[in-house]
């Protein structure tokens, strides 16, 4: 066993990388749920984003276009969910599951010719000499653009919900759709937009895994991160800053267990690999006492009758 190989600064830096995918996906789901829609298809949208992003990045050689395609792919898939739940008024839980099952199949179909290929590398943002600072350098100034994009997304979402009228309307629709309808707000339209945003974010998160974190394509490579994103929204009590906190916690556990595996701890790797999932369960239990932020209309179908 060699714990000295674990460098705290590098640990924090890699924790931020490990947290980014789940954070972006969870922020998207948070907006969707704030509008009163429970989309359980995050895993399916993430894996679809992962493969779309990968395919386009390999095809064009541009990781940027890859991420764009991933957002698009996730959004397209989420649109299917929107059609099912908002127009056909299907059960949201069942539709979300359908989305995940479909997404997993679709992604492996698209991805079968991409196994074993390396995607074009995503350059790190260049902060010049700042990156060379001890401790602060690797933690703050030595990341790929998506790490920063994720942080900005959290901040923007927070400001959007707290300070903008559109954010207020979104919350109103999720809180009481009948009242919002009575005041003349287009409940269905607002919810569809929120679903699409959630899909795009999930797609981005998925592409982060296939293009940067791993980076290559394998079937089912998101490995439950989409579900953890869903758990994260509950953990965060529907508050953006707490999504950030939760994502870093999750990232920390993931990185730590990987480091422990690498350091050759006497616990078999399989048991260490369980830890992120087990911790998610523990966190769900701990957070079950605080449902204060939960939108009151979450998961309920809206139909403007009479």
């Amino acid at each position, binding site marked *: 066993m060699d714990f000295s190989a674990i460098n705290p600064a590098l640990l924090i830096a890699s924790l931020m990388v490990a947290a980014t995918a789940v954070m972006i996906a969870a922020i998207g789901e948070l907006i969707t749920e704030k509008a009163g829609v429970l989309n359980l298809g995050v895993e399916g949208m993430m894996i679809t984003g992962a493969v779309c992003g990968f395919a386009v990045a390999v095809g064009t050689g541009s990781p940027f276009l890859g991420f764009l395609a991933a957002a698009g792919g996730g959004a397209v898939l989420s649109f*299917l969910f929107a059609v099912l739940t908002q127009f056909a*008024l*299907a059960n949201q839980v069942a539709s979300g599951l359908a989305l995940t*099952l479909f997404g997993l199949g679709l992604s492996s*179909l698209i991805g079968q010719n991409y196994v074993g290929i390396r995607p074009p590398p995503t350059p790190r943002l260049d902060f010049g000499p700042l990156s060379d600072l001890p401790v602060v350098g690797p933690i703050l100034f030595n990341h790929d653009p998506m790490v920063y994009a994720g942080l900005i997304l959290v901040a923007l979402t927070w400001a959007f919900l707290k300070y903008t009228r559109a954010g207020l309307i979104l919350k109103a629709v999720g809180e009481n759709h009948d009242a919002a309808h009575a005041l003349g707000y287009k409940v269905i339209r607002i919810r569809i937009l929120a679903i699409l945003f959630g899909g795009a974010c999930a797609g981005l998160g998925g592409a982060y895994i296939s293009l940067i974190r791993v980076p290559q394509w394998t079937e089912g490579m998101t490995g*439950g991160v989409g579900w953890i994103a869903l758990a994260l929204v509950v953990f965060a009590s529907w508050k953006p800053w707490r999504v950030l906190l939760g994502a870093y916690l999750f990232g920390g556990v993931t990185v730590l267990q990987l480091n422990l595996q690498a350091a050759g701890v006497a616990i078999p790797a399989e048991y260490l690999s369980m830890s992120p*999932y087990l911790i998610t369960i523990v966190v769900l239990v701990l957070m079950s006492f605080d449902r204060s932020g939960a939108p009151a209309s979450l998961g309920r179908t809206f*139909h403007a009758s009479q």
Partner: protein
Amino acid sequence: MIFLEKRPQPSKTLSYITPVLAVLITMVAGGLLFAILGKDPVAAIRIIFWDPLFGEFAFYYRPQLLVKGGPLILIALGLSLGFKAGIWNIGAEGQYIMGAIAGAGVALALYPLEAWWIFPLMILAGALGGWAWAMIPALLKVKFGTNEILVSLMLVYVAENFLSAMAIGAMKNPEGFGFPGSRNLQQYPSAHNTEIIAGSGMHWGVAAAFIAAILAYVLLNRHLLGFQIRLTGEAPRAARFSGVKPARLVLFCMGTAGALAGLAGMFEVAGPAGQITTGFNVGYGFTAIIVAFLGRLHPIGIVLAGLLMALTYIGGEAAQSALQLPAAAIQVFQGMLLFFLLAVDVLTNFRIRITLGETA
């Protein structure tokens, strides 16, 4: 202008027709998908849906229908109870794995003892293993109000890791030349889940599935508990008013689903699969969700839907070798089926009205 108008009463006729309609639409959309992949759509549909039943090699495929359909039906029956009551156990895959590990564990511990009671004991262990795994999300939901969807799903990943740990660790075959995987239970007569009628595909797990379907039918239509399950799903507040204890219902539905999934896993590991390996689970626990919905959460419907879904597995494999159709295509096909089913379901509760011209 097209809009939906709520029917005063859900249409019974349509609730029977919509699954069939969904299957037909999926066939068309699937054909389209196969055409995009450069395969002859008509040939693909024939190879998947017709040949396994009536083609040249039907004698080989037909028993497979039962072998694959058995676990799907068994798991879906359990899930359907919870789904009816609005309790969403989607971690059947994990419960299936744990049932298999528990069942196989009993056999491996007793090897090479031969006795008549070993197989019944394995059945019990399998059911208990799945039940215990399902009790985790159930108890957490009852005690703390945690979301059973997320917890049961997280436990799938935990179970998968546990399965690999078993396959290369505690349950590894000591005579296996270092290869991962347990002893093959097919070569252990007291533990082998044999075919009841040789060559029919009808092993004990399939028999269990049919028995479970009959029991589920009686439960849902004739017994107070079944009524309470339906009532809870339709109107949770009315159910509490009626005297239903929600916590007990959660424990019952989750526990039953877990036990049935565990049984399915145990019958699989002791029969068709034979051994505990890392990739032992092939997604029956998830496909069973589609089976449950396609069967309208009705026991008889589930039996039919389970057989149909088994057909897509078998036909899919056939198409894989005959047309080089990718394995994932069949997964997409199954996913699409659930999509279309949910979409056409709207017809049961709503009427589509088309009005022409000015309405105001």
